[in-house]
């Protein structure tokens, strides 16, 4: 691990931005992809780009800087995947949009958690347990390794594989 004192100025700036805007970038990506696990990938890609272009960033409007990159990444992803943003009959959508009231944010959170619980629980062992602990109970890989007595690397691999399975499953069913 690198201590904060050993970081360069740019690294410190990046770590602060990550701390402050991680949830914002994730929420932007989640809103665009509609998929929790794709949003995770897109957020990672967003911050990798932020890190690369940090030297050219003037420091003004960091939220806008990160959001613009996140939107770009998601648009590229959606165009590649040819999903979600597919032009359809506008009139039908306008009707649907106007008659469905926007859900409360707390409801969105709960709904997301519930859907995650369902999809994670549907995996085969040991991935179901690891995925539920990680994605639904918010436990880190290290905490799961501690409580289960497994090696950290094993847990990290299981989380990665669980995520791959969940991505495939959700893309198929378009649930979360």
């Amino acid at each position, binding site marked *: 691990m*690198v201590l904060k004192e050993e970081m360069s100025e740019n690294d410190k700036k990046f770590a602060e931005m990550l701390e402050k805007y991680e949830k914002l970038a994730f*929420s932007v990506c989640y809103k665009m992809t509609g998929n929790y696990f794709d949003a995770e990938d897109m957020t990672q890609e967003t911050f990798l780009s932020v890190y690369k272009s940090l030297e050219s960033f003037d420091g003004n409007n960091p939220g*806008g800087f990160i959001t613009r990159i996140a939107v770009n990444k998601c648009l590229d992803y959606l165009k590649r995947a040819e999903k979600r943003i597919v032009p359809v009959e506008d009139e039908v959508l306008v009707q649907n949009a106007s008659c469905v009231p926007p859900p409360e944010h707390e409801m969105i959170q709960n709904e997301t958690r519930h859907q995650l619980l369902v999809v994670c629980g549907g995996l085969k062992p040991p991935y179901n347990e690891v995925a539920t602990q990680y994605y639904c109970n918010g436990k880190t890989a290290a905490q799961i390794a501690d409580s289960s007595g497994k090696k950290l690397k094993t847990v990290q691999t299981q989380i990665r594989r669980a995520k791959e399975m969940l991505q495939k499953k959700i893309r198929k069913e378009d649930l979360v």
Partner: protein
Amino acid sequence: MHITKEQLNHYISDRMTQIEQLNFLEHISKCEFCAGKLADAMLKKELVFTPPDLKDNILEQTVYKKTTTPVKLPQEIVMARVRKKQREFWMYTAKVAFAVCAAVTMIMMPVGTLPGSSDGNYKESRLSLTKEITEEEARNNVKILDLFRNTSAKISDDVSKALNLYKK
């Protein structure tokens, strides 16, 4: 033209058609000013919870990746590894040279002792083209040929082993 407050509200509350949404996002992707407006609007609402290790994973791919320096091995170990690599390389070169010599020798051998010459018809037809040799000479030549075959097979095995070692 920048996005309006109305458009922003419609996007946040999912009241946009998909074409409107696409146009809206295309503009945001090019305009940092409007991206800032969207960021402010998103920050006002409750943001979605993130996976627990997301931050650490990002840091590992950026800050930690760059600053982590590889462990420096002692000079003796480095030199011993270099010497071992050099030794393996020279062994490999010597074996290849030997294999080439063996192949050249086989090419230069009398026709009657070529592979498959133990077959009667082949031997007869080939013998008619060259000087006659006695049966005992032919038997001896076949023995030598077998010896060469076995040796070259062994060399080939050794070379492939040496190559694997060298690659590692």
